[in-house]
């Protein structure tokens, strides 16, 4: 083969982003297409646990071994995405002793460092653990930021020549002579994503090989190609608290069950989760009882949770898969392993493979196996280097700096930025010219970081949000959504600013609705007052067709009495135009 083989990857979750990086490193010509922004699917709606493997140490030891292996790899190549919090499996008096021993033994069998702590020792580590917690097993669980992880993988791939198109939905799979030769995508209406697709148009993308990494949506792509991929989407809820009640991952040590894990994440803690099969990965009920279940059950481990403030809840769907004929009834029993479906072998349709199942923790290993398969099929000889080469942001970041002096910002702010940016800190903050005020106070995100995100993700403020965490803190964007949008005016017109703001604001609202009581309801009212009362964003005349008769309103004391419908004026002339444009304009 003389030309560089080309590969098209569908899906910008952890799996797709991992694959495009891997293949780009191996020198292939790769394109990734994603219908939303990166992490739009399950990856943007998961729990953020970097598994030690402890959770699978009894039920699924091969998975457990993969987890601990990848846990070590990610700590090395993705330092700026990982916080090594450590984890505990805690046992309450009513939990089974025998299971505790099995868990301990399982960890040891799989090479997962595990140490038994007494109840008091566990409480010394985590003072808010319930008084009657009996004992615990300590394992190297951690927290991982899925957004930063995907962005870093995609950025590295782009640096190596890959094309990444967000807001580009695959609407058809192109089959010629019984072989898959590419896909047709539809570029989003608005130019909000990254990539060079013309907004609102369709484009046919041809490639030597197509990888379907659409997770819970894999069946839909399969259908377009005429093959069956029987994914069983299963939903889980996660509830975000306003502070870190625990600094360690806290798991309940019992066989399986809902609401059995708390993961500390940045300034928050996330409670999870449930496992319930759904029909459609994008349309399923999100219900209050699920949130209540998280709070009520997990307060058995950490009692203060019952009175604590939650800031929002969100749901994700697992792309569970099992080979045809397995017939598992309970979704919690379906394996967490991943499957590579080679449609040439399986369906006699060459040119495409689908990946389903798996975990974020093992995304790199999955990507490696799939990339191996792709290279083998295309006859390319190149080794995988993703386990050795750090991601952008995670290379030799060892020098601690006095960020305040360096960049003129308060040191706690600088520290938070540096945590997020890792080795890119210098690039982003150091190169910034001009004042660098804080845009998001809750998460300490400065203007330079917002602009860096805009440069890489376009005008989609939800993409800016996931890169920076701006608007993800306690106030849920009350004080910063519009500030983020304001930063767009440098390169875009006001209508783009307004539309982007509306979209971000609505997205924030969706998750907040699941936390509307107590403090957070007061917070929501404050937000409503700021954006509706003070800014009048809800009644914005610029967003409506009607024309205002400005002359009917007060034009100040000095103005002629005619203007301003002085006392006793006919109230009829004082309304906006409810009908056609211009009708009232000269009344």
């Amino acid at each position, binding site marked *: 083969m003389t030309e560089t083989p080309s590969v098209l990857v569908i899906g910008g979750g952890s799996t797709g982003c991992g694959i495009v990086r891997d293949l780009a490193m191996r020198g292939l010509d790769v394109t990734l297409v994603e219908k939303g922004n990166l992490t739009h699917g399950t990856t943007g709606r998961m729990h953020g646990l970097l598994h030690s493997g402890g959770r699978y140490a009894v039920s699924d030891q091969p998975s457990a071994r993969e987890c601990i292996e990848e846990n070590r790899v990610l700590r090395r190549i993705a330092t700026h995405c990982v916080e090594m919090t450590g984890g505990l499996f805690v046992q309450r008096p009513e939990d089974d002793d025998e299971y505790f021993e099995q868990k301990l033994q399982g960890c040891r069998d799989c090479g997962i460092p595990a140490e038994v702590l007494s109840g008091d020792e566990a409480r010394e580590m985590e003072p808010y653990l319930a008084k009657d917690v009996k004992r615990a097993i300590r394992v190297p669980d951690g927290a991982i930021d899925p957004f930063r992880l995907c962005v870093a993988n995609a950025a590295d791939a782009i640096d190596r020549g890959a094309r990444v198109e967000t807001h580009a939905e695959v609407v058809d799979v192109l089959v010629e002579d019984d072989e898959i030769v590419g896909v047709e995508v539809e570029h989003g209406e608005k130019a909000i994503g990254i990539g060079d697709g013309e907004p609102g148009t369709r484009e046919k993308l041809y490639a030597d090989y197509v990888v379907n990494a659409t997770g819970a949506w894999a069946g839909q792509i399969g259908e377009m190609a005429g093959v069956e991929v029987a994914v069983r989407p299963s939903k889980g809820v996660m509830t975000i608290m306003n502070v870190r009640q625990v600094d360690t991952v806290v798991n309940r040590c019992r066989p399986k069950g809902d609401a059995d894990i708390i993961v500390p994440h940045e300034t928050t803690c996330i409670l999870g989760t449930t496992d319930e099969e759904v029909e459609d990965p994008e349309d399923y009920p999100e219900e209050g009882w699920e949130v209540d279940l998280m709070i009520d059950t997990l307060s058995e481990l950490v009692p203060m949770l019952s009175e604590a403030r939650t800031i929002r809840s969100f749901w994700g769907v697992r792309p569970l898969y099992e080979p045809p004929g397995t017939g598992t009834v309970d979704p919690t029993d379906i394996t967490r392993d991943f499957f590579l479906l080679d449609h040439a072998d399986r369906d006699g349709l060459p040119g495409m493979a689908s990946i389903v199942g798996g975990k974020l923790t093992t995304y790199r290993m999955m990507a490696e196996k799939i990339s191996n398969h792709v290279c083998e099929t295309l006859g390319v000889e190149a080794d995988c280097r993703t386990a050795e080469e750090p991601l952008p942001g995670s290379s030799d970041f060892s020098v601690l700096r006095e960020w305040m002096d360096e960049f003129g910002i308060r040191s706690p702010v600088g520290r938070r930025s540096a945590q997020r940016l890792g080795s890119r800190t210098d690039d982003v903050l150091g190169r910034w010219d001009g004042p660098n005020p804080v845009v998001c106070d809750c998460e300490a995100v400065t203007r330079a970081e917002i602009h860096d995100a805009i440069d890489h993700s376009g005008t989609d403020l939800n993409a800016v949000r996931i890169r920076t965490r701006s608007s993800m803190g306690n106030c849920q964007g009350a004080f910063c959504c519009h500030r983020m949008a304001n930063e767009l005016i440098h390169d875009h017109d006001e209508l783009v600013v307004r539309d982007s703001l509306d979209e971000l604001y609505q997205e924030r609202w969706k998750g907040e609705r699941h936390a509307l009581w107590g403090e957070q309801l007061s917070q929501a009212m404050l937000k409503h007052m700021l954006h509706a*009362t003070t800014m009048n964003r809800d009644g914005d*005349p610029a967003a409506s067709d009607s024309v205002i008769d400005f002359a009917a309103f007060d034009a100040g004391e000095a103005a002629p009495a005619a203007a301003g419908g002085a006392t006793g004026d006919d109230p009829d002339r004082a309304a906006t135009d409810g009908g056609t444009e211009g009708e009232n304009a000269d009344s």
Partner: protein
Amino acid sequence: MPIREDVLVVGGGLAAATAALAARETGRSVRLVAHKKSTLRQASGLIDVLGYVDGDGPRADPYGAITDLPDDHPYRIVGEEGVRDGLRLFDDAVGDMYAGGHTDANALVPTYGGTVKPTARYPNSVAPGLASVEEDALFVGFESTTDFSAPVVADHVVAAGVPFEARGVTVPFPIRFRDDARATRFAKALDEDEAADDGRGVRRALAESVGEHLDGEERVGFPAMLGDDHDEEVREELADRLGVSVFEVPTGPPSLLGLKLEDRLFEALDEAGIRLSTGNPAVGYEADGDRIEAVYVDRKGKDVPYHAEQFVLATGGLVGKGIGSDRERVTEPVFDCHVPHPEDRYDWSESAAFGGHAFARFGVVPDEELRPTTASGEPEFANLRAAGGVVGGADVAREKSASGVSLATAAVAGGRAGEEA
């Protein structure tokens, strides 16, 4: 010595202050018990009366719009007369600090989010910026502020159809502060005419840098941070030097216009001889049958009774903490008055961010004398009235009626309490 007054007002915001003034007008002795600072520091400082009814607006005539409101709206209970009385008390209290009283019509004011909004009273510094004035405007923002983007505001105002041209420019503030300096820091520098980085006075330096951008505009608008104690002087000097009028655009927190209004209201309370107890929350009460005898105030863990003949509850809504909630219930914490709400908390809000949320209307249900009522419609107490955000039934954010509802209910509740005490 026991604390005893004719009228006791619980709360420390716009509603409490106005209710106290209304009660005092009847010649009674009045005391105000306030816990924390009110929401005025977050508010724009504008006094909205009524700008939209069920999404329809902006309406130019707030009074004419009252009759279109639902029957249980507080304005329907106090009537146009009550609304006018509230504004009269406000106008008397703030004197010439505010404008808008010369007409019944609403004014349209540029907001810091960009568009315009209808309001009834506005600080003097806002007046030259009104959208019905047909003069071209230059909006000016500062490089290090993130809340206010002059180009966004200008282009958005134009998109709203205003009868003039507008442009926005961003300039460096002549003194380089820390990047996250607050509005109050800018105001102080202008107030005291501190030296700019190049040694000129900051007012002159600012006027000169803005002057370079003027291109025939007849007025210049800044975010509301043009001075604090000497704001008039700052504006006059800038206007003189620029040769055009200068106005402020109300901002979000920390809102200097809101803070100035708060200060002014507390001065008015003082001038009227109203007693103040601030810093401690009211936590409960003592009743004899259907009459409240005293309200308990928590002073360092001790419950101290405050006696009175008549009581006004003006503790604010969800933001002011006059209304509380948990996963099952919505409550009024001081007197445990009935607060109706949908049973399922998912019905408290709408899925559209700016929908007609039920939570926005949460509050006590007043009878015709503004006494909070029980679930069966009887007054909770014979001598307790409610005013301001704690009163339910109005979606003040969407209606642009927040301060108006506070003033009108306070005028009626306070006045009535005074008459009966």
